[in-house]
């Protein structure tokens, strides 16, 4: 599938008009801001590679659960469950987030990505890392897990360095940029901890080596990376998609700083086995998330676009689950390790918050990326479809209702130890994901319409 949209587009279009100006503005913008998205957006090929990997891993992880539904009620610290969790988190969630970040972060912050060359190396490290790590967890070959982890962390270092250098260019460091910065830091720490735990000699170097570092690693990954990004990016994308504005930058900052202070406390406390500190950290996180939700509610209340599309609705449901999640987490911390409430908590975090938020945002990001690759060069020359015309709304409705209904049944089944109910819930969730995947495939089919780059004329030979 030739994905050369940006290079083709640059060859086909003229340079920006020198008459493009922001003259007469009361709110004057610097010229590079008026140059707008095309100057800042990297090639669509890199984000698309990550998103396609994400979709493949989502399909695999969902199928795996449907084939082995008893996993959801079993103790989670088993090789198979750990393998599934890493397929879902690294293969689906992190791949999607990284792909989206390469595209959205520069455009949303109004600066150019620091290095496309560095970004071009990342996909291969990430893909091979995931492909190695997940099966090796399955068979519990820790030396190979370490190798897979080393590849993943190498890719993550490239990613973090690239985005950190990009963030340094932004004119104003706001709460969104701060959330991104924190998420990058937690990403590297999570992976470093994971790598450390996979090497027995290194694990002994951890303070309190017999502590629950696996739980600390999980909280750092889910909370530090994904919840941080969900909250931070909401402050930028929600206003954009709903035709609203950020209502209170102070609230956004309080939410960001509180969330990360609480995360740091929870991470250290869980690892060192300080139960009360972990609860205190959880309480701080709860307050921070309440502030964040207050701001998101205010953004939505001030929106000019009254009707919300299915992707945004899915995302907002995920956001709404954040507070219940922290409540369940605080209670689950008081239960025994094998308690069903801990499985309930883990599934709510993975499928409910992370899964729904990412699938919801994919409803917006994937159509936009495909449209940008295929149709933006043709705008004004031929008729181009809108984003709505490229997707099936009935399938989006199926995704919304089936995923929510499935999650509800699944959690009821897990909470009360009812395997049949949990299995029905999983199948319903699977129907919702399948409907989204069909929509995604039909979207990606549009990429076949990208014309090849114009051929150079053959060299002329002159015979004397």
């Amino acid at each position: 599938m030739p994905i050369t949209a940006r290079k083709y587009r640059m060859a086909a279009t003229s340079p920006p008009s020198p008459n493009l100006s922001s003259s007469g503005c009361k709110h004057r913008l610097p010229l590079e801001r008026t140059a707008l998205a095309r100057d800042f957006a990297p090639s669509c090929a890199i984000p698309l590679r990550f998103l396609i990997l994400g979709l493949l891993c989502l399909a695999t992880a969902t199928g795996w659960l449907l084939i082995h539904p008893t996993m959801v009620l079993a103790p989670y610290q088993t090789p198979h469950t750990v393998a599934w969790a890493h397929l879902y988190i690294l293969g689906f969630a992190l791949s999607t987030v990284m792909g989206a970040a390469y595209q959205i972060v520069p455009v949303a912050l109004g600066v150019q990505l620091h290095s496309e060359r560095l970004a071009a190396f990342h996909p291969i490290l990430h893909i091979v890392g995931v492909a190695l790590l997940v099966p090796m967890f399955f068979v519990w070959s820790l030396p190979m897990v370490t190798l897979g982890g080393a590849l993943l962390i190498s890719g993550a270092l490239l990613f973090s360095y690239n985005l950190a250098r990009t963030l340094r260019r932004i004119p104003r460091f706001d709460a969104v940029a701060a959330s991104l910065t924190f998420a990058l830091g937690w990403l590297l720490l999570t992976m470093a901890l994971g790598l450390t735990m996979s090497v027995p000699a290194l694990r002994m170097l951890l303070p309190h080596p017999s502590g629950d570092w696996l739980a600390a690693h999980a909280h750092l990954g889910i909370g530090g990376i994904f919840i941080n990004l969900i909250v931070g990016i909401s402050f930028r994308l929600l206003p954009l998609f709903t035709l609203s504005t950020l209502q209170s930058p102070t609230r956004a900052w309080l939410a960001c700083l509180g969330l990360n202070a609480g995360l740091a406390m929870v991470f250290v406390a869980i690892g060192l086995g300080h139960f009360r500190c972990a609860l205190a950290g959880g309480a701080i996180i709860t307050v921070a998330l309440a502030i964040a939700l207050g701001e998101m509610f205010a953004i939505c209340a001030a929106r000019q676009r009254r009707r919300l599309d299915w992707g945004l609705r899915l995302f907002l449901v995920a956001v709404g689950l954040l507070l219940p999640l922290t409540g369940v987490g605080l209670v689950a911390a008081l239960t025994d390790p094998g308690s069903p409430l801990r499985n309930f908590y883990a599934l709510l975090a993975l499928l409910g918050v992370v899964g729904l938020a990412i699938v919801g945002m994919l409803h917006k990001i994937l159509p936009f990326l495909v449209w940008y690759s295929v149709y933006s060069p043709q705008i004004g020359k031929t008729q181009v479809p809108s984003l709505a015309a490229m997707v099936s709304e009935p399938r989006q409705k199926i995704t919304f209702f089936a995923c929510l209904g499935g999650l509800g049944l699944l959690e009821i089944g897990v909470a009360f130890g009812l395997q049949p109910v949990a299995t029905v819930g999983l199948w319903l969730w699977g129907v919702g994901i399948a409907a989204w995947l069909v929509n995604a495939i039909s979207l990606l089919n549009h990429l076949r319409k990208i014309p090849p780059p114009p051929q150079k004329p053959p060299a002329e030979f002159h015979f004397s």
Partner: protein
Amino acid sequence: MLRARLRQLIDPELGLNVVDLGLIRKIEVVGSTVTVTMTLTSPGCPIGEVLIDGVRNLVTATPGLTDAIVHLVWDPPWSPSDISPTTQETLNSTFL
């Protein structure tokens, strides 16, 4: 005539044309050169330059016109009240 032509340019996110969205502030024609003053729904609009390119392409494809100058302005900022009344209802009923 140019406004009618620019109605072919659709914001892909909202599914509405740039004229009815109220993005086109002014059109001036001098000889074969057209100056279009426009705005965007927000400074962070990810397809801003795509829409500007679209305006240029549509204008220069019009018979008798050879050059298009686009002035991007932010004052006054765009607001939904700029949307034409007949289009306002469509905005609230479309799902994307």
